């Protein structure tokens, strides 16, 4: 009963490379979210999805792409990674009002 899993947990990449962060839930929560966490900024919403094939931008969407072909998966792609995208990324689901967070992916862009 894992809830939310994220992979990889750690990733180092180079500027300009494409990177995909995976998020998988074992529940069937309709809403899923991607946040980035940076010191001094708390958690900032990148993209969210209300259901399969329905996605929308959050507060900081530039440089990111999402898709959601299945309810349980919500991958986040950095099409051409930049150093400013070095961060910890959290995926979350929502059940009623409560959001449940995954363990996070620490991404470093060199």
């Amino acid at each position: 009963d894992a809830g939310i899993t994220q992979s990889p947990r750690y990733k180092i990449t180079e500027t300009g490379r494409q990177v995909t962060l995976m998020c998988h839930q074992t529940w069937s929560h309709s809403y899923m979210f991607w946040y980035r966490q940076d010191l001094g900024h708390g958690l900032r919403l990148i993209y969210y999805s209300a259901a399969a094939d329905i996605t929308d931008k959050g507060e900081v969407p530039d440089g990111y792409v999402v898709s959601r072909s299945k309810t349980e998966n919500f991958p986040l792609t950095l099409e051409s990674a930049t150093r400013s995208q070095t961060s910890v990324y959290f995926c979350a689901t929502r059940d009623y009002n409560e959001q449940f967070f995954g363990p996070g992916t620490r991404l470093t862009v060199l």
Partner: protein
Amino acid sequence: QQQVKQSPQSLIVQKGGISIINCAYENTAFDYFPWYQQFPGKGPALLIAIRPDVSEKKEGRFTISFNKSAKQFSLHIMDSQPGDSATYFCAAGWGKLQFGAGTQVVVTP
């Protein structure tokens, strides 16, 4: 722009003391105000939440105080324990959440 402002950035409290974290929001349409607790290397987890029709909510040693007219809410941790050492985030919203910047709490033995 940050719609939820949280203070202080960090605080140190002795075991048994009271920790108080404050948040202010701007959007009067927000109707859900949760606090999340995060330990190093983990994702945030819901600690306690309140809706604007209530001025206070208590769960164990954790209490939220809510002031709708001032657009402020706070978290009080009573009888703080070393295991409470963590980062605490306030948030506000009505579906999507806006998070504060976080407060690192250290409880000394």
